[in-house]
């Protein structure tokens, strides 16, 4: 990076002044935000969805998404105002001086080309390096990013490597032109905690080694605590607070920042839950579920008692969702038994009675696709009431209003389409739809992972409240150990289709651990700036 450093007159590489970005309908997405970035410095941008984080990240490249435009402000890279450049000049800047790393690496790679060809494309195109030079540099990056067999890694296609590896390859692609500034847009959000920790460590190392400046966009305070020097808290496109990482985490000055921090901290405590009935609602014994030839659920036994919450945790691909699908009758069961209220359930959905279907309800991860966008809320919630209980239209209407109040939504939402609702509200409608069937058991598949922190917290509180009032049992699938600590009576840890540890939540989260549980627990970022280094040091010793 020697030639890059000599060009700079000062340490400051990026200066954004009063950046203003509006949608074409006049909605203000980013409202006069200013920031500065020094070489080797990492600034964390944090906020909930709609806060304008990504819009600012792209704005730093003088780029705006379709339907938005930059209406004011200055973006200077090394003193050059990038907005005043021609389209050609801007293109020259992007990739070469400032690079962007998106959340979904899978969507950013072309599946039809080898990884190496995509990584070296930019420097060769920009005429910075020859093809051989670019390849050598890519190899160095692959090595620095700890990719397996760096010499042949680039010869593979994007679908042939894992999500974490692809995210690192994407970082290599962004680094390929040796940019001065990198914009990371939630680079680890789509990854499992155990993978996230590796990627975080490597990003941190890379920034240090090459003295690059970076904007790090995320919604997770604990993640940003590990990598950034300063944090900017954003809300509704406005800056709420800017300060040193330690100050924001330790002593936030604004109410909003305080709410974000305390919400995140609450997740680390084990909560006390009331005792539960001993009667088992659901009892799964030695169940085996198979997709064609792949055994997704292997010899799993688990039970859920009345008004109890049992959490199933594990990384993606561990078989959590497959277990849920097996119980629901969507995944063929090869052997074992699933008993519901003491009665054996047929393996296939079609053979189950209407009453069996009614008593087990399911809440999906993505409320956007779980609700039919062309139906009104009244139709969505009212249908189970009508189908299972055969009520008259007037009674259905009354019940819908009741359910809406119960899940904390205004009654007049009944006439709206689900598309007019926010993510959290949609998830509340999903819950109301499940409740409409008056079930004994609700299986929740990561119901809060697509939601913002504060919204997710509201949904969790609602689920808890409903359990206290109605005595419904939950089988709660999640990868978030913070949630498990807060709501689960018992916890099962899944790995490669098997349950490796099972027991009361307090027992699972206290030593002696199963080795995998320990790895999972230790990978969850904590709200301390030293956490990442500590864990890595510990693992190196171990």
């Amino acid at each position, binding site marked *: 990076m020697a030639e890059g450093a000599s060009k700079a007159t000062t340490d400051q590489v990026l200066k954004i002044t009063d950046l203003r970005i509006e949608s074409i309908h006049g909605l203000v997405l980013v409202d006069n935000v200013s920031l500065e970035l020094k070489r080797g410095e990492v600034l964390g941008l944090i906020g909930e969805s709609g806060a304008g984080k990504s819009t600012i990240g792209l704005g730093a490249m003088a780029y705006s998404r379709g339907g938005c435009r930059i209406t004011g402000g200055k973006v200077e890279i090394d003193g050059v105002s990038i907005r005043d450049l021609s389209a050609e000049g801007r293109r020259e800047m992007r990739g070469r001086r400032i690079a962007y790393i998106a959340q979904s690496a899978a969507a950013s790679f072309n599946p039809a080309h080898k990884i190496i060809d995509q990584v070296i494309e930019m420097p060769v195109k920009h005429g910075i390096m020859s093809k051989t030079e670019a390849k050598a540099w890519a190899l160095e990056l692959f090595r620095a990013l700890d990719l397996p067999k760096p010499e042949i890694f680039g010869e593979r296609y994007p679908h042939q490597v894992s999500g974490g590896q692809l995210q690192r390859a994407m970082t290599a692609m962004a680094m390929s032109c040796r940019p001065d500034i990198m914009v990371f847009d939630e680079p680890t959000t789509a990854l499992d905690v155990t993978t996230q920790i590796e990627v975080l460590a490597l990003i941190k190392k890379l920034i240090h080694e090459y003295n690059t400046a970076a904007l790090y966009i995320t919604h997770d305070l604990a993640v940003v605590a590990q990598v950034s020097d300063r944090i900017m808290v954003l809300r509704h496109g406005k800056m709420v607070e800017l300060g040193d990482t330690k100050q924001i985490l330790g002593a936030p000055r604004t109410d909003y920042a305080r709410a974000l921090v305390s919400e995140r901290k609450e997740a680390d405590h084990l909560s006390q839950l009331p005792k539960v009935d001993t009667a088992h609602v659901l009892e799964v014994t030695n169940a085996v579920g198979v997709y064609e030839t792949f055994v997704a659920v292997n010899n799993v036994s688990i039970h859920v008692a009345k008004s109890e919450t049992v959490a199933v945790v594990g990384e993606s691909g561990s078989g959590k969702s497959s277990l849920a699908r097996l119980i629901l009758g969507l995944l063929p069961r090869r052997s074992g038994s699933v008993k519901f209220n003491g009665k054996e359930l047929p393996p296939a*959905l079609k053979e189950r009675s209407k009453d069996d279907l009614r008593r087990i309800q399911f809440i*999906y991860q993505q409320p956007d696709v779980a609700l039919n966008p062309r139906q009104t809320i009244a139709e969505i919630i009212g249908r189970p009431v009508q189908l299972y209980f055969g009520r008259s239209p007037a009674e259905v209407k009354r019940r819908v209003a009741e359910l809406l109040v119960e899940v904390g939504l205004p009654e007049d939402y009944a006439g709206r389409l689900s598309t007019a609702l926010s993510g959290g509200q949609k998830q509340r409608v999903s819950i109301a739809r499940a409740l409409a069937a008056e079930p004994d058991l609700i299986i929740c598949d990561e119901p809060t992972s697509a939601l913002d922190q504060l919204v997710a917290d509201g949904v969790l509180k609602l689920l808890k409240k409903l359990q206290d009032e109605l005595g419904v049992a939950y089988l709660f699938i999640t990868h978030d150990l913070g949630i498990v600590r807060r709501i689960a009576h018992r916890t099962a840890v899944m790995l490669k289709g098997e349950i490796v540890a099972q027991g009361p939540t307090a027992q699972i989260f206290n030593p002696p651990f199963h080795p995998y549980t320990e790895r999972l627990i230790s990978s969850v970022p904590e709200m301390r700036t030293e956490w990442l280094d500590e864990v890595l040091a510990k693992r190196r010793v171990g």
Partner: protein
Amino acid sequence: MRIFGHKPTITAWIGIVIVAGFLVIGIFAPWIAPYPEDRTFDDVGSYAPPSATMWLGTDQIGRDLLSRVIYGARTTIGIAFLTTVLSFAIGIVTGLWAVVGGKIVDQILSRLVDVMLSIPLLIFALIVLSLFGSLFQSVIGSLTVLICVIAVLDSTRVFRLSRSVAMNIVVLEYVEAARLRGEGTWWIIRREILPNALPPMISEFGLRFCFNFLFVAALSFLGLGVQPPLADWGGMVKENAKALGVGGMAPLWPAAAIALMTIGVNLIVDWILSINARPSGASAEM
């Protein structure tokens, strides 16, 4: 003014005016047209140039071209519209059924459609019309036969589209939720899939309408479509083609009507497509 809750663009307005204009002309043809469609004017003769009494002149046997273009709107648009509606009804129902009804139903329907698609549309229509046309003609009338044959053949294309649209919808979680709830196949088709499959299908409706419209014209041109003396634009192009040789403009008027109608429909289709492509408030990323 807003239509379906959206404000039409200027080009959409042009399309709406053209299509609405032709519809009005078609519906009220007997009142608008100066002369009956089959009246010949022996005194004027064939291929007469435009005049004050006959604005577009006469055709090959001395009938008023303007009247025939006006009556032609009724026949051509009417047939094309009925055909398209029927073809969509058949295509959508079978397409969605193939997706929801399971592997065997899908295989049978899809392979059947493959067989039908492997035979060129025009040749297939010619065979069917010449073999069975006269058989059913006496029972239900030649126009009905024509509409049914084109609709069935065209529905294979609609089947393909609705099946692939529904394929993407059926895997969505709200459809699975309906299954988990114990809903029947017909309910899932009607209430969960159809409302979501319709928007992309509506724009396809406009395109298929144009194709059918041209297809009717092509069949008439070959003599198997609308039978004389009934006026239809495709047939009129054929009847009057010889006029070009003698410097007459007779075939250009119905041809222009075909072109204008096609453009009008496509302008509206473009607008509907752009509504669908536009991110709705909920799914727009900030």
